């Protein structure tokens, strides 16, 4: 089974977040809790539904990731960009995505 993590956008500011092992919504994909079997994925989905109905987050999704040398890497480009931000310099003082992380 492909590994999965739970992601959403925070209600108050819309920033992309991932669920960690403590049940907190964190801003780094690398801190996300990884579901490695069907029961764990089902649990993530339930947590996502509750967080949505509790008005903590919006646009909740379970996404596919691959773990290589301890680094979580979303299979879809869209999710890699969500995890690291725009891929070009867009505003002074704000980090952009690492090209090595973005490229296939």
């Amino acid at each position, binding site marked *: 089974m492909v590994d999965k993590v739970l992601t959403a956008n925070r209600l*108050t*500011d819309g920033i992309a977040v991932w669920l960690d092992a403590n049940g907190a919504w964190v801003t780094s994909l690398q801190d996300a809790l990884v579901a490695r079997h069907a029961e764990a994925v089902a649990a993530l989905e339930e947590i996502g539904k509750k967080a949505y109905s509790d008005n903590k987050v919006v*646009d909740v999704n379970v996404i596919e990731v691959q773990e290589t040398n301890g680094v979580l890497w979303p299979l*879809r480009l*869209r999710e890699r*960009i969500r995890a690291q931000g725009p891929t*070009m310099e867009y*505003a002074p*003082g*704000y980090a952009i995505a690492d090209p090595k992380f973005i490229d296939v």
Partner: protein
Amino acid sequence: MYRYDEFDHAFVAERVAQFSDQVQRRLAGELSEDAFKPLRLMNGVYLQLHAYMLRIAIPYGTLSSKQMRMLAHVARTYDRGYGHFTTRQNLQFNWPKLSDMPAVLSELATVEMHAMQTSGNCIRNVTADHFAGAAADEVADPRPYAEILRQWSSVHPEFSFLPRKFKIAVTGAERDRAAIQVHDIGLHLKKNDKGEIGFAVYVGGGQGRTPMVAKLIRDFLPEEDLLSYTTAIMRVYNLHGRRDNKYKARIKILVHETGAEELARQVEVEFAQLKDTELKLPEQDVEAITAYFAPPALPARAEGWENLARWKKADPAFARWVQQNVQPHKNPDYGMVTISLKPIGGIPGDASDSQMDSIADIAEEYAFDEIRVSHEQNLILPHVALADLEAVYRGLVAIDLAEANAGLITDIIACPGLDYCALANARSIPVAQEISRRFGNPERQAEIGELKIKISGCINACGHHHVGHIGLLGVEKKGAELYQITLGGSGDEHTSIGEIIGRGFEPEKVTDAIETIVDTYLKIRKDQSEIFLEAYRRVGPQPFKDALYGSAAEAA
């Protein structure tokens, strides 16, 4: 410029208060996302990949310096120090917090701005020729009519829940700079043989997944019938437009399925009922609104001619900028300046807070306090004395916005694409940046001449790729980005939809493909006066297919 009256002020203030209350209730958990989403969309608030996005309406693309400074202030205070001017003549902020929206909208209201009807299945921000009121070839200023349509369509109870979104564009010259034939309704302001003002009415144009060129259903609609006839079109659409399938819900599909002739007949039936009702435009109201758009008193500045010739001789870069970015004004002592938001390798349409402030200063000092946003994602100073062009140019050089590329290959339209947009399948901005860098040499751009490249990161076509001389559509194929190229599109008075040239290109190959197309054009053109689009229309796709795909061209 149009100034809010008491009604407008009260109307916007009420809406800000209403939406502020809705935001507070959402944050307090009293409103669910399902309940809140349509409310936030009605107020221009989207959710993108990284954050919320706020789309602010700039009616017919007209801004004062004060308004531009407010946009700079919002960018600095509530966002990440920049804004993105769009193909809808609007401005988008990519990082505002939901909790800040009430404050942002309250601040915008102080300068007569809002974000209403920048989303949702309603009549959106009415767009117009960005050279309105200044162009030498203009019959009449389209903005008073765009303003009348804005007032009529704002929170119109009958047209707030249409089958799908609805876009109206107005142009006042034979040369269509508002792309009216790819809008739901396109209005071409003209005069009849008697010298009376009226409109040619086009219906059912659009881009997206089913691009269509609008059909002419009325060659001359008298001015006084603008709202009654538009209402008749809306009623036919509201009644018969498809609500069962989002992808078939735009009026272009209705026009296509019904036939333009039959649709025009249905509109005429409705119009007959509406023609002599309260929708008939009173002459005094038209005059009152037109007075708001009276051009500034332009003093004679004949000294500009001599100065300009001298400055151009002394500074080739300035001469190039004047040649490319300054267009003839109806007053010969003045010009219309395009401020290119396409610096080489930059992000099309982006401007920083400090750039916005500087442009506001320049407009205040040299351009009668008026700025326009073009649908090509540039800014315009519509009234600048030739005698002031040098000072304006120096001011723009100081903020890195003096690129002399208006209408050239690096003046690229690009949607936000997958770097921001939740709908996108592929990135647009980095592709535009690489093409811009490849062709950034001023001499090379000038040699290539007029060439409009337009890039969309998904089939929704916010980057207008269907009407690009060269269009690029980003798609996702097997988890990777791929760019489909179309050739021969155009969004002017001879509108055409670009043709797909063959199989798509990977991101690392797309700039080479563009170069191959450009080199092919340079080889086949009759002379430098034959621009890319004309050459393509003369020879068709085959030489380009051969150059791109070689012997595989037949199969493509």
